[in-house]
């Protein structure tokens, strides 16, 4: 849990690192050309156990006013990585800043892999209607 961000007459506001990580992960995966996040061994085990890991492939550092994000991404084969990376950076920054009010100072994108589409055999045409 981060340090309290705001302290008003009524109390204080804290934003957990995990919240920022979930926002970043969702914002990254909705960008066109992103096949998924790469979460390493721990993320893989969590998914095998049936736990939907929304923070997979996301590392965040959250301060009182600012946040820095590292994203470990798998992109679709054929997309232009510089273009997709820029879209990820912009989308993640916008999402975190809009939803939390934190200033995002850095969004580092690490391309971990390229997702190759599997070539499925053409479906057999039916001889009857």
């Amino acid at each position, binding site marked *: 849990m981060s340090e309290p961000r705001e302290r008003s007459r009524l109390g204080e506001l804290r934003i957990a690192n995990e919240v920022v990580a979930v926002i970043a992960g969702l914002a990254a995966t909705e960008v066109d050309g992103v096949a998924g996040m790469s979460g390493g061994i*721990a993320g893989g085990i969590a998914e095998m156990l049936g736990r939907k890991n929304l923070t997979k492939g996301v590392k965040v550092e959250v301060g009182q006013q600012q946040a820095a994000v590292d994203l470990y991404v798998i992109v679709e084969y054929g997309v232009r*990585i*510089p273009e997709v*990376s820029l879209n990820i950076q912009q989308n993640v920054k916008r999402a975190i800043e809009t939803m939390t009010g934190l200033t995002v100072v850095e969004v*580092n994108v*690490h*391309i971990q*892999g390229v997702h*190759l589409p599997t070539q499925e055999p053409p479906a057999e045409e039916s001889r009857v209607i």
Partner: protein
Amino acid sequence: MPLLDRVTGTVVALLCMVLAALLIAIASGWQAVGELAVLINRLRAAPWQTALAAVVLLAAGLRLLAQVFPDRVERVLVNETELGQVRVAVQAVEEAVLRVVQQMLGVRSADVKVVLTTQGADVRLKLAATGDRTIPDLSTQVQESVEKYVRETIGVKVNSVSVEIAAVGADVRRVE
């Protein structure tokens, strides 16, 4: 992480795991002799607690090892904007280049090695050709396609694309 921390972490992690293995053996009925047997008998009196301790130690050991030897994926900086850095894993580039090469007419199989530096990429290809096309034609096209792909899609300047034709001929199966 400093070397001393790595060594310490590794030793502690290994000790944890050895201890965990010992506890698992005890919990599952392993027989020992001497002083160890006395200790084991005490632990065996509480098999569930022993097993729980083993699980905790095992988890701690694995966690420590993961900290000591972090993810060693080699990544290279390809772009830096005011928003942050973009790094690409060498393996990702190799997979994509392999796909590009395998889709080309005249290539039966390929082996790709990419060396990425901040100055650019050096791509080394070892190909098995089908023999449908002349080797100079094939290698020129492979070089051009790979250079274009890496430059445009990955966003990295290509210093060289070296091609080695390791085999020629169709992949004929001897049995049906």
